[in-house]
């Protein structure tokens, strides 16, 4: 296939990618969008295989079969709760592949590229740096989310100095790759330093900040592909990489806003309770009311509008199916049920929605924070399951609170708030929640799944 024909196919593939992402604007059109994206990828791969530079197919077949088999196995067996770590791992593979391709362009420029030397070497250095850091950073993120990596050193000034030094070393090695491109060792060293940097940047970041990190690594994997596009002089890589880079950046910014933190804060600092924070005793002191499932069921009996607020605790308790049963029962009794989803309700952007969709909750009952907050005053009951910081009114009212300014779900404005929780223990922010002591709040102490089951049983009896 001639060069210009291949480039036309690449253009078609790029259009497919854009249309594919455009399809994600609605759950109805999304499956077709994904198919269009996949079709674009297939076209790009087939066109490439007809490239005259390809003279032997042995290694290609091995690579496609092995990679295809692993990818298929992972995609079909992964649990929805484990989606964040899988996306993290995939980000890493994308970044790693880009760094490797850039390396091959240094070793065999004749077969791979015909861009001007300066562009080739600068882009190669960029691809090696971003790609390798994305790979190791993603592997650390995977390990943390999977629970196999528990090491979490404090982010202190020594660590910042080390990271700064590593970054400067990477820059110097990058310059060396450009000045002395025939010495492949410089590129290898650059990849090594970038790999260590990727680990060092990710390892101090804690559980609650993981959604930001995954989104950021997602963006990096796109930028690495983009840099590789400059190495190869290939527009489809540049376009696809930019789309992914933009997507990751948007999600990163959404997550940061949802947590009321700057990106720099997530990457270099940690959030802790400040000295002025009220203690749990001051906040709760005798004001917390609790109820049994039977008492709660009586209130549900007359409710017209119930808003369910799920947090990650619900997913940990595997309570989503029971919650759906409760919602169905309430609907049979004539109530309207909506779900209010905070952007950081799960472990990655949109995670909670997937978990609920898996439990057959219709997507038109899922509402984002800005779409439902005005509705809480009309709700008879807000049922909070496994969420804490995202419903803490201190974020709205207490200027001294470490979470002040964080967007929260205004559950306290509903008629009655019921909170299913094992105890009054604090959430990730480590601060007490005045909501639990509010006059309209009722604590339903217990395991998420069991309590919802008890509620269902009590409602059936009435």
């Amino acid at each position, binding site marked *: 296939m001639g060069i210009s024909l291949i480039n036309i196919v690449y253009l078609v593939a790029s259009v497919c990618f854009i249309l594919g992402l455009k399809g994600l604007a609605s759950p109805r059109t999304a499956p077709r969008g994904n198919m269009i994206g*996949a079709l674009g990828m297939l076209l790009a791969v087939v066109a490439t295989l007809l490239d005259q530079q390809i003279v032997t197919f042995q290694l290609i077949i091995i690579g496609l079969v092995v990679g295809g088999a692993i990818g298929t196995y992972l995609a079909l067996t992964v649990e929805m709760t484990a989606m964040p770590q899988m996306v993290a791992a995939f980000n890493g593979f994308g970044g790693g592949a880009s760094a490797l391709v850039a*390396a091959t362009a240094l070793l065999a420029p004749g077969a791979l590229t015909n861009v001007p030397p300066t562009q080739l070497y600068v882009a190669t250095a960029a691809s090696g740096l971003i790609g390798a850091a994305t790979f190791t950073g993603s592997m650390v993120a995977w390990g943390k989310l999977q629970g196999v990596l528990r090491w979490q050193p404090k982010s202190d000034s020594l660590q910042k100095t080390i990271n700064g030094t590593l970054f400067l070393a990477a820059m110097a090695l990058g310059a060396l790759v450009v000045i002395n491109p025939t010495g492949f060792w410089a590129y290898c060293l650059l990849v090594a330093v970038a790999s260590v940097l990727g680990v060092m940047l990710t390892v101090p970041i804690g559980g609650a900040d993981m959604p930001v990190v995954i989104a950021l690594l997602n963006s990096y994997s796109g930028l690495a592909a983009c840099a590789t596009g400059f190495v190869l002089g290939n527009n489809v890589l540049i376009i696809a990489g930019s789309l992914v880079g933009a997507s*990751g950046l948007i999600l990163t910014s959404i997550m940061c806003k949802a947590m009321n933190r700057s990106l720099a804060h997530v990457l270099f600092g940690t959030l802790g309770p400040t000295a002025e924070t009220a203690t749990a005793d001051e906040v709760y002191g005798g004001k917390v009311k609790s109820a049994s499932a039977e008492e709660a069921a009586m209130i549900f009996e007359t409710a017209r509008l119930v808003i369910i607020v799920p947090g990650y605790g619900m997913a940990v308790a595997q309570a989503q199916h029971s919650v759906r049963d409760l919602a169905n029962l309430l609907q049979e009794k004539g109530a309207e049920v909506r779900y209010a989803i905070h952007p950081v309700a799960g472990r990655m952007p949109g995670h909670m929605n997937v978990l609920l969709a898996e439990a057959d909750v219709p997507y038109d009952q899922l509402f*984002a924070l800005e779409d439902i907050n005005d509705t809480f005053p009309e709700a008879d009951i807000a049922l909070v399951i496994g969420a804490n910081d995202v419903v803490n009114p201190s974020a709205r009212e207490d200027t001294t609170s470490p979470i002040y300014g964080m967007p929260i779900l205004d559950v306290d404005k509903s008629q009655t708030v019921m909170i299913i929780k094992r105890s009054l223990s604090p959430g990730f922010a480590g601060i007490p929640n005045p909501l639990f002591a509010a006059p309209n709040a009722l604590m339903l102490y217990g395991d998420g799944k069991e309590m919802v089951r008890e509620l269902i049983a009590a409602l059936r009896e009435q």
Partner: protein
Amino acid sequence: MEAFIIYITVFVLAIFVGFEVITKVPPTLHTPLMSGANAISGITVVGALVAAGSKESTIAAVLGCAAVIMATINVVGGFLVTNRMLLMFKKKK
């Protein structure tokens, strides 16, 4: 230099297209968006294939093969898992 300007042009315009398209994706679909975008970033496979199939350098071919494996995991796994998730999203009966 001329060629470089063209690539940069494509890059900048693509970023804008990306922002326009992605901001229209509702929060409900942010996880499938990430996994789907992830699959798209596996486009690197295109370069990996050429490297793995060329005879210019053995090391390059071997590295290329490793890159094909990684990128294919990304592409195949990414599109499949996205499809699996998207099929779970249903409207109320």
